[in-house]
């Protein structure tokens, strides 16, 4: 029998190579790709793009993100639609950031400490954080848990025969008092008061958290996804995998709701966390895409630096058992 050992198992080919080299040129024009990258890549366009992007993100930030979440950045001329690859328009590329799991923030002890510092400070911190993140990424928080509870109650009402077999999470009871109270108030009226309160404590003992929050807010305000967003074109059949799960305590009602829902999050084709179609020959589109991706990465880096600072603070201030269990989509 002939041996297969030594038989070549890979080859290189190019399809729409002009788009790849246009992308390389666009990266050079905006200062991300350099002649050194070209030399390091051995004149290979794919390696050039990869190395230039990695250097632009920086190794420290890549390490930070990899410790907290599984993001994949991909630039392609086709998109996966209902399991099939569909080509984009001629001369178009798409930058996709997809998440394979979910970051994790346990914020209950933080809110308690902030509330002890001044009443309302914890709630202000929480609301400002979640509302800034809503602008940029999907997160899973108390709002999603409330929606899950409501759906379960609706299912039970429509299934009278088996209604007694349904279990309902009691989300409101599981919230810290400062959040439960704040649910009843008008957010529009309190938004400026919350910001003033946070500003007053910018130099206090929790100032570094507030500065991180302010940085997230700044980037979120500047984040504009101006390109053609595939999520609006019916390409995907479910929302993105959340980039962050925010619970108040480990194994609380929000974690329980997430664990139920997350079992099905990867069954369909979820929308990416970021998807922007652009033409590499159009400098305006390249620049707006670069800006959007840069803000998205910056927000995530600030967020996960905040998460790690909070974890370190909790390690110093609370001698707690930190078993998070073997749960499906939560980042290790």
């Amino acid at each position, binding site marked *: 029998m002939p041996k297969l*050992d030594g038989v070549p198992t890979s*080859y290189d080919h*190019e399809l729409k*190579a002009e788009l790849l*080299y246009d992308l390389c040129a666009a990266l050079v024009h905006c200062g991300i790709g350099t002649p050194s990258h070209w030399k390091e890549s051995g*004149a290979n*366009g794919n390696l050039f793009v990869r190395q230039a992007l990695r250097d632009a993100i920086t190794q420290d930030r890549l390490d930070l993100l990899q410790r907290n979440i599984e993001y994949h950045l991909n630039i392609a001329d086709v998109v996966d639609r209902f399991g099939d690859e569909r080509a984009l328009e001629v001369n178009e590329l798409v930058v996709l950031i997809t998440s394979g799991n979910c970051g994790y923030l346990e914020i209950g002890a933080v809110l308690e400490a902030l509330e002890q510092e001044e009443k309302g400070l914890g709630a202000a911190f929480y609301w400002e954080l979640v509302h800034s993140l809503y602008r940029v990424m999907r997160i899973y928080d108390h709002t999603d848990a409330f929606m899950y509870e409501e759906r379960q109650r609706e299912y039970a009402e429509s299934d009278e025969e088996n209604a007694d077999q349904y279990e309902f999470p009691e989300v409101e009871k599981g919230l810290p008092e400062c959040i439960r109270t704040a649910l009843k108030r008008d957010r529009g009226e309190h938004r400026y008061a919350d910001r003033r309160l946070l500003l007053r404590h910018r130099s206090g003992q929790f100032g570094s958290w507030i500065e991180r929050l302010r940085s997230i807010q700044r980037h979120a305000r500047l984040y504009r996804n101006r390109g053609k967003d595939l999520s609006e074109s019916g390409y995907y059949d479910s929302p993105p995998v959340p980039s962050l799960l925010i619970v108040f305590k480990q194994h609380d009602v929000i974690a329980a709701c997430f664990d139920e829902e997350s079992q099905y999050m990867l069954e369909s084709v979820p929308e990416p966390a970021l998807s922007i179609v652009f033409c590499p020959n159009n400098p305006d589109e390249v620049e707006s895409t670069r800006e959007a991706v840069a803000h998205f990465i910056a927000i995530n880096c600030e967020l996960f630096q905040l998460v790690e600072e909070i974890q370190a603070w909790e390690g110093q201030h609370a001698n707690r058992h930190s078993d998070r269990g073997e749960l499906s989509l939560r980042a290790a």
Partner: protein
Amino acid sequence: MEPCVISKEELLALLAEKANAPPSGPNELLVRHLKCKESRALAEAIANAVRQYVDPSDPRLLPPPEILPPLA
């Protein structure tokens, strides 16, 4: 040959030249095969066989299953 470091302008000119160059014949053939579902299925089957049977430390193929009758 390892490329030497060139200027930004030279790199842009090189990239423009590559973007405008017509694809080579073998490249076009590969692209045609990759667009063909049957070719992709065959390539996948061969790749799986290679992964299963190529082992530098023990390159022997596994014995045939009982369902395959002897040749003689």
